[in-house]
């Protein structure tokens, strides 16, 4: 079963890392992202005020079997890393990681 959801993403203010809202904090791994609903604006406002994340925004995604896949290719590349440098991506050991993006 797959489900269309909305998730929150942003960048770590200090490192610039792409991060995802987990319900309790922020993770670099999109699979840890949780679905948000009408509470999204309140979460973003609260987290922005802490001045540790930047460029926070809501995106569309699909949840299936415990995995989360952003709906748009741009967000999938953000979640993985550059497809031409998988060695620098979040899945350096997976030579097929690039195909997850497409």
């Amino acid at each position, binding site marked *: 079963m797959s489900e269309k959801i909305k998730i929150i993403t942003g960048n770590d203010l200090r*490192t*610039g890392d792409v991060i995802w809202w987990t319900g309790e904090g922020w993770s670099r791994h999109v699979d840890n992202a949780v679905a948000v609903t009408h509470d999204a604006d309140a979460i973003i406002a609260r987290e*922005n005020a802490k001045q540790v994340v930047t*460029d926070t925004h809501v995106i569309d995604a699909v949840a299936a079997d415990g995995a989360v896949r952003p709906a748009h*290719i*741009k967000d999938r590349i953000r979640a993985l890393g550059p*497809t031409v440098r998988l060695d620098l991506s979040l899945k350096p050991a997976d030579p097929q990681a690039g195909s997850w993006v497409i």
Partner: protein
Amino acid sequence: MYQYDQHDQAMVDARVAEFRGQVARRLSGELTEDQFKPLRLKNGLYLQLHAYMLRVAVPYGTLNSAQMRVLGDIADKYDRGYGHFTTRQNIQYNWIKLADAPDILADLAKVQLHAIQTSGNCIRNTTADHFAGAAADEVADPRPYAELLRQWSTFHPEFDYLPRKFKVAIIASETDRAAMRLHDIGIQIVKNEAGEIGCKFFAGGGMGRTPMIAPCIAEFVPALQMISFLEAALRVYNRHGRRDNKYKARIKILVHEIGVAEYSRQVQEEFAHILTLGLEPPPAELERIKGMFADPGLESGLSDDLDRSDPDFALWVDQNVHTHKQAGYAIVTISLKPVGGIPGDATAYQIRLMADLARDYSLDELRVSHAQNIVLPHVKKADLYRVWQALDAAGLATPNLDLITDIIACPGLDYCALANARSLPLAQKITDRFADIGRQRELGELKLKISGCINACGHHHAGHIGILGVDRKGVENYQLLLGGAESADTSLGTITGPGFSEDGVVDAIEKVTDVYLARREGAERFLDTYRRIGMAPFKEAIYG
């Protein structure tokens, strides 16, 4: 090369200190992102797809070996071991941490580099012919003029909030190696019949969503009035350029809307007024700058002999080495486009190696070309073989300059937040398909340029073959263009028709090259054949 005086150094150092304070206040939460963003952008620090990106200016594309070495060191110390040389003759680092940014700028300042004029609606870093000072066909070295322009434009208060970004390119030969007429202002240094040096001005060129070729707005402005004329050209733009619509804000739209005659008339009127104000820098300043470029230390009386017995070396010489103005010297272009590689990327090790080669064999000078390659401008022919061996050992001796695999590509969707499609994997696939060097040479000069969106950072409008990445319902799609060019015969490419998938566009390119091979006459380049036979036969082959 130019050396900073105490004023240059003080300005750059003050800027580093100021930014250090701004970053500290952002990290402590004193500044919000809305307040901080314009400040970081003014220092070349963007937020891109995966991290902060720092764009470092390389004024008019010229570097000495100490500067190049620091560029390599930064890649190791603060980034992930590589940098990306761009079509704007700059270098970008993709994985910068905010807290490190002031330290990086401080490291840069020690070797007279900075990230000023690399973002925002100001006059951006000036670009120039990458063969400046070495080319046999130049009427003068354009770099002293570019340096004067740098000094005038840096922090120019009147032009710090223009309607939009403003890019100036400067050349001094009939052969345009800097895509000069695709800039907001293009300057060609020329000599008049009396033998005096002056500037031929072009205005209103650009790429982006409405590409335009700059028309000439003044045939000859005396060199000692160059700054006054620029001041006038910018002032008219600043006054009338549109601020209501970002997509119509570049000078090209103004020149197009009011017409080149009216724009020129207003510039001339303003110019006459400015000449009465005495704004031009004193002639002594230009002379002082010229003095620093005059003699890089070229020896005379050297032999032009070359031992071509190693066939791989001979191939590289034929493709990547150009004639120097001085006998016994050559201009070497180091290709950053290996087959399967990422156009413009170089590792820290490679960057430092190129720095060493410049120190030992090129009178301490390097250039970044707008085609994303590196130039060693002053190499003795007697040293060429040694230089080639060192480059070859570091994967830097690909003999493909101006061939189909010498691709210009913007970062695209792998790194850029504005992108619609990836350009880098496509570049890799094209180089894989055309990997055979014999086949590439058979195709001859063929400039292929890829942009990941309509902003055209990869110059796709000016490619003999251009590729534009678009988003088709969330799927990457590529439009193919033919017939663009960026040299003396600048022209804009035409879209062939419906777009392609990534693999589809590689196939289409192959068909296009097949048509060329079948139809070319004599020594025609791809572009010449296209211009003679037109789009129809290519279209037929691709879609027929």
